[in-house]
């Protein structure tokens, strides 16, 4: 529709949308305010809007004890991050393939994340972070690799077995998780995979597969057949054409699907809670915090933990917001 141009109309529009923003973010703003309060201020029955902010809770969530040379470590980390950001910004100007540089940056980031516990005495919360990174990246990579092959096959094959797989996928997408827990649990004990990253990753790949193949199929449908046929005329095998020609064209769609998979994996609670007692993700670890509302830390500590655990996923989705929204438009499915 044509945009409203009347000035008063525009003002009203902005007011309405600001109300929407307030409605969606109010809980977070409140939690953020709580996370920088002292315990006393946070417990006040009449909300305090003017107070001395403190970052105590954040350091308490992440570190057992503030290190003596904290300033140097902090500055060092900031310097490394700044250099990586610069490297990322100028990646296109350097005489190395851009992809390698991005992989390198990701590798160094992982290495830094890995080594932080030896520099600072971190709490269990930090270990959960590393668990989340391992589980999420493993599940997303495997899902996308096998899912894009299946999605491509389903987009191109016209036989009836394709329809059967797609219908079965819809049915499995909507089934409750509870029925699977006991079989998974028993199987994990009998196969010796109990409490391992591998088990959690495979299970998450499986439960997300129905949605992944539907969404990727929708993206591969938009890739014209002619380009892969041209490649095959030039002597490429079907798989070669898929890898070298179709994947690059469908890449934005693959990114969008990866984002969705990441979101769903990051949100998963019950399966990880039961299958991996010691390899829990941030999401599951937060449930443990629920038990300690009274004494251990109180509202500010809880709030800080909540804020720290939601910030990574919010940042990732907001950075890729365009692909995210477009992905829903094309795929019109969700996890």
């Amino acid at each position: 529709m044509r945009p409203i141009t009347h000035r008063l109309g525009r003002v009203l529009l902005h007011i309405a949308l600001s109300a929407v923003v307030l409605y969606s973010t109010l809980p977070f703003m409140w939690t953020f305010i709580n996370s920088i309060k002292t315990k006393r201020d946070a417990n006040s029955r009449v909300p305090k809007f003017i107070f001395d902010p403190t970052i105590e809770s954040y350091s308490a969530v992440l570190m057992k004890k503030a290190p003596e040379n904290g300033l140097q470590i902090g500055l060092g980390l900031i310097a490394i991050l700044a250099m990586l950001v610069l490297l990322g910004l100028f990646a296109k100007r350097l005489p190395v393939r851009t992809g390698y540089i991005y992989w390198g940056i990701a590798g160094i980031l992982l290495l830094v994340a890995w080594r932080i516990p030896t520099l600072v005495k971190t709490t269990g919360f930090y270990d959960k972070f590393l668990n989340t990174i391992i589980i999420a990246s493993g599940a997303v990579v495997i899902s996308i690799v096998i899912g894009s092959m299946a999605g491509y096959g389903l987009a191109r094959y016209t036989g009836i077995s394709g329809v059967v797989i797609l219908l079965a996928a819809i049915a499995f997408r909507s089934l409750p998780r509870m029925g699977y827990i006991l079989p998974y649990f028993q199987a994990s004990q009998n196969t010796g995979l109990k409490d391992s990253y591998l088990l959690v990753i495979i299970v998450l790949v499986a439960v997300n597969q129905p949605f992944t193949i539907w969404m990727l199929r929708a993206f591969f449908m938009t890739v014209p057949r002619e380009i892969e046929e041209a490649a095959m005329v030039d002597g490429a095998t079907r798989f070669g054409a898929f890898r070298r020609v179709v994947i690059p064209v469908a890449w934005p769609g693959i990114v969008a699907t990866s984002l969705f998979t990441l979101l769903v994996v990051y949100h998963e609670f019950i399966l990880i809670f039961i299958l991996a007692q010691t390899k829990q993700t941030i999401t599951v670890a937060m449930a443990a915090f629920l038990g300690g509302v009274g004494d251990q830390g109180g509202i500010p500590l809880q709030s800080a933990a909540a804020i720290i655990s939601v910030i990574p996923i919010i940042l990732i989705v907001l950075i890729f917001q365009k692909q995210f929204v477009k992905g829903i438009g094309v795929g019109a499915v969700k996890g």
Partner: protein
Amino acid sequence: MKRRTFLQFTAPSNIVMAVLLIFPLVYATWLGMHFITFRTINEPAFVGLDNYRTVLADPAFWGALRWTLVIVVVTVPLHMILGFVIALLLDQMKGRTRAFYLAASLIPMIVVPMIGTIIFKQLFEPQGLIAWAYKSFTGSIFVFNPTSMKWVILLHTIWIITPWAIVLFFAGMQTISQEQVDASSIDGASRLQQIRHVVIPHLRPLILLTALIAVMDMFRLFDNVFVLTRLNPVFRADTVMTYNYRTALDLRRLGLGNSVAIILVIAIVVALVPLLYVTYRDQIKER
């Protein structure tokens, strides 16, 4: 594409789904016929269909089902109306302002349901903002009781699912052709008439899809009810999923829990038949 190539391409995905989705479901049905607790997890005792009978005779199960249906009936239409209106508002914006408003309105969906609920609940705790506002307006103190808990669950459910409707409708609105809208406005249609006669018909398939997905998701509603009630039976706010969790892990009747899950699986698949049929027809037409 040849059948052989198709099977090769889909093999890894199909194997994963067969081994980890289909086989466990069959096994779960079998386990649902056993008496199992954590102690006897490796030597289940066969009890036939007793578990299934116990569940179907349990008034708490029907109560949970009724409450789940209430959630469906209230939240599905409301979140779609809300999402539609917000998508219309967003559609009026351009460039960076639009990106900002869109990003902010998506936040409830991006945030982990567990943590989002904890955060949401804080507003209602005695130290929270809404509890304080409630007290200043009504003079009485906000407490969680069966009634208020149900309102909070409904409110939170709408809060958490509205972004899906926003984003689906918004994406759909981007595909409306400008000419069609212009033609209708030349014919003298007002904005409301344009919405009624151009936008809504264009979005019809999407509206149906959103409704179906929302209904399916409301049947799987677990995380937020789990956190808000902490499974305290006082609130009588069990959905079918929390009821299932309670039987399996709180009461430690694992076999019984499995039979609840299987009954729900059957109910959901039966409810899905129309959707499956429509999809089947579309797929056949596409080929």
